[in-house]
Structure formats: structure tokens, C-alpha cells
């Protein structure tokens, strides 16, 4: 077998897993009225079907004061049990085990949801929620213990194989452990022993409630990575003491806090497997099975982590959101069929974090497994002749899905390569991995029997002559041709031209950022890497205004500043003037209305929006039997919508 360690069994407590892959806990927002839902069942079931040995559910709340998110499942109500049973029965049919994660988020909560005060060890607001909590009284701590125990009983009665207590990046337990958030002077604060008291009480209460033979583990934050916080050395000691209590069966790990949330779900700007050193550090001290999670998105790397003894379990969260069948494909040696997560964070954390349901830019079926999951695609009753024009993400997905349904599909693109704008996007600094979106699909398009015609730019007449039953127009978008006065002047370029390396730029470059996303910032960084002096002017409050939800904001700004880029926010740019080498930007501050001029610059780069490329659509409208328009050529958006529409259209033709 290709992956000896990965597919070897392991015991966590009394539970034997068939392999070392754990689908790590993550919120989905699939709960309905704070109860487990059918959507949960199909969602986790799909990953069980896909071959993961272990599934750990999203964090579930143990107490009414724990309201970090509006759609947390409230595990402290006994009414959750029937829903739990449905989920666990469904998952168990696929020979997978399922644990439930229980949590109290402490200060990392929003009291406006529960209309209760937020509880924490000390009255110290969290950096993200910024709400001053109530300092917990000893009775409150005992109440949380009782609620942990009560919820754990519901978990056991719900048919779960085990329970994991979240002591990681977002948890009351970590807040007790960390000198950063625990300033108490009673028996719950001060010395390490005292700081460990409450978390140990939670563990003891749960162990007592579930019995000796039920698997119980914790998810510990391996390094808070913040001044004054816990570091690996201290966590090793804490982990060793938890282990010595003899009450837990495994040690799952996470990293960081909400000060540095970008480390919890590292994006593509973080190296693959970035937490391996921490897991290895814990494994040196801990004899219990240790987990390693964090951008391990491929089985080869997973195997290596295990073979190197750096962990005993491999946690995959986004890798399996993106491709639930990764374990099965790896087991069968079909690595080329795996859809690798690219760490863009847009669909998963980028949606979940702002209270939308979980998604994935590359997997439209996330949360819709019942309707769109494996095995739901039906062969087309009538085989049609389908012509897809445009081989960007939208066109690729439409062609693939239509091909799989048995249609005769021809995909045309005027470029030499498939991929559309993604081929340009991946040239931004640190954005190479974005291109994997296309690499993932190329083989699949071939396997779906699609005939690909590159460098093929058909006129509407040629298309009509070929007489297809269906035409899917996915011709994408282009940068706006005239977004601002003077855009057609000398030494003014758009992001595409710059990333494709066409123009000669001078040393001093000004980039106008009306995008707020990577289109602008990754281009600016690329220019800085080339040794240019870059000045970004944006109309937003700050540079990178759209990068918050994907956790890219912090590191992007850090890198840009390290590379000497200057930021000017709040400016509406009205005109670009001057000759090459003497370019000027004129604009006004959107708050003070004061006009200002910047310059001189050698060149100007515009990231000021896209316009649709839909001429073909309008030329064909009313002339073909079935005509669809998808992706950026409907309205310029992002890859997620292009793939979504491509998938949906391909399925329905």
C-alpha cells in the first residue's frame, strides 16, 4: 500500500479507528434553531463515506452563556439526543467513528446573541469580541462543570464514539490556563497548578459522567503565539499534567488565539503543514496519541508526518471540506483525482465567520450533500450536443458536469491554456497555489469525455453553423477599459498587464486599489518583490478591506509594510494625469472632501474593477435552442460564484 501509516489502525481509548485521518472540528452554521440538523447528518456522512477514519463534529455549546456564534448547537439541552442519534447512525454505516466537540468559548463570545453577560476567568475583553466579561465566581465554574458533564451525557446517549473538549484557540479552558487572560488571585489563578484547576475540573466532571470506557480527549492550543501568552514549552508541561491525570485518551492540538486567528486556519500564504513543529514538540513529551492539523492537504504529506513520528493522527479540516473523498482516493492510489484545497479560505472560514453557511469555492456540494453529494448526479435522459465557450473556472465546471451526465461536450477557449483569469491571479505574490483550482479540474474534464479545443475563438456564425443543442457562454470578464479619467494616458496599466509581465514599469509605482482583495494587494506585493517603490491609494478605510474574512488581512498588511509599501486610505481617485515618469494622481478624501495630488510616479497600476465580456452571449441570444450565461460574464465576481454557476448549469442541462 502506498500509505502504510496513514491507513493503519489506531486506538483512541477504547475506540479503534480504521485509519489516521481525522476530519477536524469546525463550525458549519448548519444548525437549525440551535439543534443538530439533517444537513449536519449528510455533511458528516459524506466525509464518512469518503473514508475518513474519524470525524469530530463542530464545537457544540455546553452553557447558555456560551454564544460565540448564532448557530451553535446547544448540547446542554437533552432535545439534541434524537438529532445526534440520526447523525451517528448515518456515519456509522460507513465504518467511521464520530466524536463530538464540546466547548465553552468564555470571553470569546457575543453576549448580544444570548442577552446574557459573557463569562471568563477575568474581566478581560477578547480582542475580537471586545466585550468585557463577568469574572466567573467559583459557583459559576462549578455550574460550567455540571453543564459540561450534562452535555457529555447527551453526547454519549446520542451514540457518539467519544467526546473532545475544546481547550484550544477559542475556549474558556485556555483562558483559564493562560496568564494572558487569567488574572485571578483565588485558587483558579496564579500558579500553573491553580490555572489548571478549572480545566481539570471540566475533564473530571466529564469523565465521571461518561464513564471509564468512553473515549475522552482534549484539543489543546500548542502555542498561543502572543507576547505574555503560553508557548510550546509551557504547553508541554500543561499537556504532561493533563496526561498524568489519567483521565484523557488523546490530545488533539490547535494553535494561536483570536489575537492571531490567521494562524488557526492558515491561508495559502502560510506554508503547508505549518504546525508540524509544534505537534512534534508535543509528541516528544506526550505518550497519548497526538494530532497534527494545519494545511496538511495531501496524503503524501500526511504519511510523512506520521512516518516521521511527528504525530499519531493527521487532522484534515479544509482538505476534506474541499474533497470529502480524499481518504478513499488516497487509499486507492488515485492521487490525480483528489481535489486539493488551496487555502484561499473564501468559501469555508470566509463564509462561516460572517454567519453564512459553510461552503467551499471548489466544492459547491458543501452543505448540500443530500442534493448534490456523491452519487446524486443522474445521467441525462436526452443526450445533447453541448458547446461551452470559455475555459475559465465556470466553463470548466459546466463542461465537466455536463460531460459526466453523458452529453457530448465541446469546450472552446481562445487561450493556449485552460484557466481563464485564474492563470493571471496565480501570478500575484504568494498566490501560486490558486492555480491548483485549475489543475484539479483539467484531468476531470478529460475524464468526463469533454473535447477541449484551445486557441479556438469561434464567431457567433461558426457556433450557429455547428448547430449545438446547448451553448454555455462563460467568457468571463476583463478589467474595466476606462475606470477613471486619464486611464488611457501613458504609463497607466491594469493589474492583468502587470501580472502577465507585459509592461515596462518604472521604479516608482502607484497602485489604485478599488478591489480590496488579492487582485490589488498581491499585485502590489509582486511589484515590491521586483524592487519597486509602491504606493497604494484606496477608497476604503484601509488597504486589504476585503481580506478580513479569509484571515489574509493581517499577514498581507504585514508583508506589504515589511516590503516598504506605503498606504493611503479614504481617497476617491478622480484623475490620473501627467507624462510617464511624471504621473500624478488627483483625488479627494471621502470624509473631509479635501482634494489632494500625489506624485510624481513613473507608472500607475489600476485595480479598479472588471467589466463583463458578454458580446458572444448577446450575439447568440434568441438564436440557439438553449443558451446559458455563467460566471464573470454575467457579472464580474469571484471564483466561488463562477464554479457554483458552472456546476449548477452543468448538472441541469
Amino acid at each position, binding site marked *: *500500500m502506498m500509505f*502504510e*501509516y496513514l491507513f493503519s489502525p489506531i486506538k483512541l481509548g477504547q475506540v479503534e479507528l480504521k485509519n489516521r485521518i481525522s476530519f477536524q472540528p469546525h463550525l458549519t452554521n448548519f444548525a437549525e434553531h440551535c439543534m443538530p440538523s439533517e444537513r449536519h447528518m449528510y455533511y458528516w456522512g459524506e466525509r464518512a463515506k469518503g473514508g475518513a477514519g474519524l470525524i469530530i463534529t463542530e464545537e457544540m455549546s455546553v452553557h447558555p452563556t456560551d454564544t460565540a456564534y448564532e448557530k451553535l448547537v446547544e448540547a446542554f439541552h437533552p432535545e439534541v439526543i434524537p438529532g445526534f442519534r440520526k447523525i451517528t447512525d448515518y456515519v456509522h454505516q460507513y465504518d467511521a467513528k464520530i466524536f463530538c466537540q464540546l466547548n465553552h468559548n468564555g470571553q470569546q463570545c457575543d453576549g448580544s446573541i444570548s442577552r446574557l453577560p459573557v463569562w471568563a476567568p477575568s474581566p478581560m475583553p477578547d480582542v475580537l469580541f471586545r466585550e468585557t466579561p463577568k469574572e466567573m465566581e467559583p459557583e459559576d465554574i462549578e455550574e460550567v462543570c455540571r453543564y459540561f458533564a450534562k452535555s457529555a451525557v447527551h453526547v454519549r446517549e446520542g451514540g457518539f464514539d467519544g467526546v473532545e473538549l475544546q481547550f484550544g484557540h477559542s475556549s474558556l479552558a485556555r483562558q483559564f490556563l493562560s496568564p494572558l487572560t487569567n488574572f485571578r488571585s483565588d485558587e483558579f489563578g496564579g500558579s500553573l497548578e491553580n490555572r489548571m484547576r478549572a480545566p481539570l475540573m471540566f475533564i473530571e466532571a466529564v469523565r465521571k459522567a461518561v464513564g471509564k470506557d468512553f473515549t475522552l480527549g482534549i484539543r489543546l492550543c500548542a502555542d498561543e*503565539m502572543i507576547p505574555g501568552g503560553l508557548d510550546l514549552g509551557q504547553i508541554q508541561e500543561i499537556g504532561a499534567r493533563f496526561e498524568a491525570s489519567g483521565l484523557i485518551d488523546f490530545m488533539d492540538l490547535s494553535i494561536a488565539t483570536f489575537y492571531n486567528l490567521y494562524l488557526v486556519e492558515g491561508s495559502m500564504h502560510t*506554508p503547508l503543514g505549518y504546525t508540524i513543529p509544534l505537534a*512534534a514538540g508535543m509528541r*516528544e513529551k506526550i505518550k497519548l496519541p497526538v494530532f497534527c492539523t494545519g494545511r496538511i492537504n495531501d496524503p503524501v504529506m500526511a504519511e510523512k508526518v506520521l*512516518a516521521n*513520528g511527528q504525530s499519531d493522527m493527521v487532522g484534515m479540516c479544509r482538505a476534506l471540506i474541499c474533497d470529502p473523498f480524499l481518504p478513499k482516493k488516497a487509499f486507492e492510489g488515485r492521487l490525480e483525482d483528489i481535489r486539493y484545497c488551496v487555502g484561499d479560505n473564501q468559501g469555508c472560514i470566509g463564509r462561516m465567520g460572517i454567519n453564512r453557511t459553510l461552503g467551499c469555492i471548489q466544492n459547491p456540494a458543501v452543505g448540500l450533500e443530500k442534493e448534490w453529494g456523491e452519487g446524486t448526479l443522474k445521467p441525462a435522459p436526452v443526450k445533447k450536443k453541448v458547446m461551452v465557450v470559455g475555459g475559465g473556472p465556470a466553463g470548466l465546471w459546466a463542461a465537466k458536469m455536463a460531460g459526466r451526465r453523458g452529453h457530448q461536450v465541446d469546450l472552446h477557449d481562445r487561450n493556449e491554456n485552460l484557466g481563464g483569469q485564474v492563470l493571471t491571479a496565480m501570478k500575484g505574490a504568494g498566490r501560486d497555489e490558486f492555480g491548483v483550482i485549475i489543475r484539479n479540474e483539467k484531468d476531470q474534464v478529460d475524464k468526463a469525455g469533454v473535447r477541449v479545443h484551445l486557441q479556438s475563438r469561434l464567431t457567433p456564425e461558426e457556433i450557429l453553423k455547428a448547430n449545438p443543442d446547448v451553448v454555455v457562454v462563460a467568457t468571463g470578464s476583463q478589467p474595466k477599459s476606462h475606470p477613471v479619467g486619464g486611464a488611457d494616458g501613458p504609463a497607466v496599466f491594469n493589474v492583468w498587464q502587470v501580472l502577465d509581465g507585459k509592461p515596462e514599469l518604472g521604479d516608482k509605482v502607484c497602485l489604485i486599489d478599488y478591489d480590496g482583495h488579492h487582485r490589488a494587494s498581491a499585485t502590489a506585493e509582486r511589484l515590491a518583490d521586483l524592487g519597486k517603490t509602491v504606493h497604494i491609494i484606496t477608497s476604503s478605510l484601509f488597504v486589504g478591506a476585503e481580506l478580513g474574512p479569509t484571515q489574509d488581512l493581517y499577514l498581507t498588511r504585514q508583508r506589504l509594510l515589511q516590503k516598504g509599501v506605503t498606504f493611503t486610505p479614504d481617497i476617491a481617485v478622480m484623475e490620473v494625469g501627467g507624462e510617464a515618469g511624471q504621473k500624478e494622481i488627483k483625488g479627494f478624501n471621502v470624509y473631509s472632501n479635501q482634494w489632494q495630488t500625489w506624485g510624481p510616479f513613473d507608472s500607475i497600476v489600476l485595480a479598479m474593477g472588471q467589466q463583463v465580456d458578454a458580446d458572444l452571449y448577446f450575439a447568440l441570444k434568441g438564436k440557439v435552442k438553449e443558451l446559458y450565461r455563467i460566471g464573470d460574464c454575467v457579472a464580474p465576481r469571484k471564483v466561488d460564484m463562477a464554479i457554483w454557476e458552472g456546476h449548477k448549469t452543468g448538472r441541469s442541462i
Partner: protein
Amino acid sequence: MAEKKLDILVILRECSDPRPPVRLMAKGAGIRDRGLRCLTNPADLEALEHALELRDAGVARVTAVAVGPKSLEDSLRLALAMGAERAIRVWNGVLAGGDAVAGAHLWQRVYAILRPDLVLTGNRLLDGGSDPAPALAAARQDLGCVSAALSLLVKDQEVEILRKGDRGSRQKIVAQLPCAILCEAGFKEPRYPALEAVVTATTQALETWGLEDLSLPEWEVGALGAALDQGEFATPRPDPLRSTTPDPSLPAFERILALLSGGIQPREGKMHFLPPDEVVESLMEIFQSEGLLPEAKT
């Protein structure tokens, strides 16, 4: 001179053939024995050859004994074809699952019944295992035991043995009979039996001993008599490979940078424009100064 002949007991064991790929059990924990190719342990056959040479010289009688199910009869018939006088297979279902202690118990009883002057067998099993039972049994029976024997010479009541020592050294040892000798593999070519002898051996009588022949109680042999419990098969738990764990004494900001760099420290590159010979020279210098190559010997 009608001297008493030496009674030699040769122990034959079976081992798995390590050459064809083995198949793992469904969960990967253990080797599947169905379809596993087995052969007579080559070192045991060499021990047999030593014994047969003494027999050919007219000073010994050879008895081959194997413990195991019917499949071991192949090994025993081979021994008969090669020239052994007597072949005994010892088996009973309860003997399965034993360990070295249970095995030693059994062999001791065999020694005690047959009272051989010399016990010969292989020093190791081909499939990498060692089977200490014959040696342990010798100790229990108060017989001397010499391992790693390359050749032996019997003189009166003594046997002179050439042993393999460390790093190619050789050691000569004289042992009193009776004793047990474990022969090294690869130093003697076992004879190729004549076709006629092979045919004859197929019909020759084999003795089969059960527990009653040994008069050993069930609980002293096999799995019940084993001192070791068979543990569960588990994938090995490798020791953690040290990776560049961010130095905890560094401030958090630096630790984050260390994680993000994946342990790689970027350095500025330098361009060297030189004629080819000098490029080589300067490369060597760089490699040496970076500690990638040892200092040049002058």
C-alpha cells in the same frame, strides 16, 4: 572396532520464504498466512548435512525431528531422502501459539526421550527470526550448547567446533558430548538427494508423536504454556523527528515568522560572473565556507 555410534538429533524447522512479497492482513497489522510460501530453514538443512557426513563416515545415526502440522512432513521426507535414518513429527493442536519457553519445554522432553549425543540445528531462521527454543532446551537438559558453528570434528567424547566470531574472526571450541550445536548458514552445501531416494522417501514411514508420547500436560505447552502474551499487532510509533520548532525563548512575533518561513531563512543571492574554471573554484570555496564540504586537503 564395533564402537557405539553417535546418536544425532537434527531439528528441522519451517520458515516463510522472504523472497516473494508477503501479503498483509486486511488492517495491515500482521502477515497473512494464507498463500504464504514456506520452506525448510536452510541453516537446519546445513546442520543436517553436517550430521549426514558423520553418518557417511560410519560413526553416527541421524534422527530428524520437526514440530508442526502435516505440512512439515515435506521437510522430514527430504531429510529421509538425504539419508536420515529416522524421522519424527511432533504435533498436537494445543501446541500452536507457543513461545520460546513453551517450545523449550517441549524440546527438552524430546531430548530426554531420544537421549541424543549431539543435537544439531540451524543458528537462525531464514526469515529473520531467531528461535531460541532448542538452545533453551539444551540448557534445561544440562547440555552444552555452541552457537554459530561453521564446522565440527568429533573426537571420542568431544567435538571440536569452529565458530564464527565478531568481524570475521574465528574461534575454536571443544565441547563435551552430549551437546547441542547451532550451525551457521551459508558454509555447507546440503546434498542434493537422488531421485530414487526421494521416491522411496515418499512412502517411508514417519513417526508421529502426540502429547501422550511426550507425556506433557496441555498447560505446559503451546499457547497455555507460553510465558509471553501475544500482544496486539500495532503499527510502530516512530520517534518524533526533530523539526525546527520555533525557539520558545524568542518573542511571539519572531516565533510566528519562524513558523511562516517553514524554518527557511532567506538570504541574499550573489551573482558570480567568472570563466568556467574559476566558477568551479569559487563554488568549492563557497561550499567549504558554508560547511557543505569538508576543508580541502593540502
